[in-house]
């Protein structure tokens, strides 16, 4: 191996490892439990769990059918629609938040009507935070499930059909179990992305403890008032990410 390649590779690895080391070293371990048990931290933790699981449920509800349509149905403009619905993966989340405001805010395309007809306003509510997280995280589920649907062996579906199973039975009893690994992986990815969502949430849903202040928002704001608590919360989010990576390692990293 040429020396300079090894050197650059080492720099690359160190570049990723140093910030993680910084977080672990600077975390006040002695006070970690006390910081975690502080009411404001618990509040953010609770809200983050509620919002990220709700977002994942919403993503499953709408994203699995969407993935199925993308994988199985030919229609004009499919690739364009597919590209547009997965755009949030690369869109800056703040832009997503502004776009959500312009659609679902009180003067938004749909939000104005929701407000005047039903008195529903989404900004500054937990529902708004869930929407922001769903918007940013759902594409991860859609793409993973779609890949699963495309690579599965469709002969099982055909066999079930010839044996007299209806479309719904085939979908729920054959297709879904066959793509279960993709479903789980997609849901976990989606959940992790929802849990980490910051930009779209603070822009669209605002920031209030217990209502819209999720963990990433709390981490950001605590850095100004109580840096130690923000280090501890960061470490919690880091551990979650490591857990997700470990859980999905066979999928991404082979059997390393």
């Amino acid at each position, binding site marked *: 191996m040429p020396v300079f390649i090894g050197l650059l590779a080492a720099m690359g690895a160190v570049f990723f490892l140093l910030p993680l080391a910084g977080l672990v070293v600077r975390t006040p371990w002695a006070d970690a439990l006390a910081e975690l048990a502080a009411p404001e931290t618990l509040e953010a933790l609770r809200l983050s769990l509620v919002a990220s699981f709700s977002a994942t449920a919403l993503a499953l509800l709408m994203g699995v059918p969407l993935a199925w349509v993308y994988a199985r149905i030919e229609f004009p403009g499919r690739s364009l629609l597919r590209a547009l619905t997965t755009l949030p993966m690369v869109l800056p989340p703040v832009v997503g938040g502004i776009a959500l405001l312009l659609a679902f*805010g009180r003067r938004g395309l749909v939000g104005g009507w929701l407000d005047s007809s039903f008195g529903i306003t989404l900004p500054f509510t937990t529902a708004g935070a869930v929407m922001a997280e769903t918007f940013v995280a759902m594409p991860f589920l859609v793409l993973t499930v779609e890949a699963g649907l495309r690579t599965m062996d469709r002969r099982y579906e055909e066999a079930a059909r010839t044996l007299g199973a209806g479309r719904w039975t085939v979908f729920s009893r054959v297709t879904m179990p066959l793509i279960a690994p993709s479903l789980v992986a997609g849901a976990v990815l989606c959940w992790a992305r929802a849990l980490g969502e910051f930009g779209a949430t603070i822009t669209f849903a*605002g*920031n209030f403890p217990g209502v*819209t202040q999720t963990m990433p928002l709390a981490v950001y*704001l605590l*850095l100004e*008032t109580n*840096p130690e608590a923000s280090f501890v919360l960061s470490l919690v989010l880091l551990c979650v990410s490591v857990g997700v990576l470990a859980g999905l390692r066979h999928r991404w990293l082979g059997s390393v």
Partner: protein
Amino acid sequence: MTRTAALIASAFLAAACGSSVAAPSQGSPQPLSGNLSVFAAASLTDSFKALGHSFHQQYPGVTFQFNFAGTPTLVTQIEQGARADVFASADTANMDRVKADGMAAGTPRVFARNRLEIAVAPGNPKGIHELKDLGRSDVIYIAAGPTVPAGKYAAQALAKAGVAVTPKSLETDVKSVLSKIELGEADGGIVYTTDIKAAGAKVLGVAIPDQTNVVATYPIVTLKASPSFAQAEAFIAFTTSSQGQATLESFGFLPA
């Protein structure tokens, strides 16, 4: 005129002491050069850009790099080692934090004051005429966070008026309170007189009477880590000069 003379004199003196500063050219008051990094409270956005512009006209060698954000965000950035020459705070508490950290060079000087007003949508559709109206159940009230000066002052004004209201969101700085009102997502917020003036026709200001109003105090200081002490001091002197004060007053600030 004496102030200007003093400013020029101090600038020459500084130029004579500092080796990095360009030598004065025959008689013209242009001994200063370099880039000044100014960290200023979000409410100073427009006025400081104007001040920087006029200062640059007098000292073409000096260019500016402004960083506007909520005051506690700026303090955190300074504490974490951001390169800043001048810090302008929207309250004394955050300035005290910088002093306590030992990062201020010299004594902070108050260069401006500001009053509070209620910001509402143009035409005042919700009929908000006094602080008490912000507590109405049909009004969405938002505020800057409790560590942001604007948020703290707003809470003080509400307490003086005996109004108990929980904001729907705690925004990171006063400008984002204003933008949520401009967008129509919130009905009312307490901001500075200068913010209302800067927003023009996009929001309407409702005056708060003297007995419940709070006057914000803006101190400014050169930071110890600054490599451009002379330039920083000259700019600070400029903000309190008659020309600087006139500029600030044109943006709605009260004299220091």
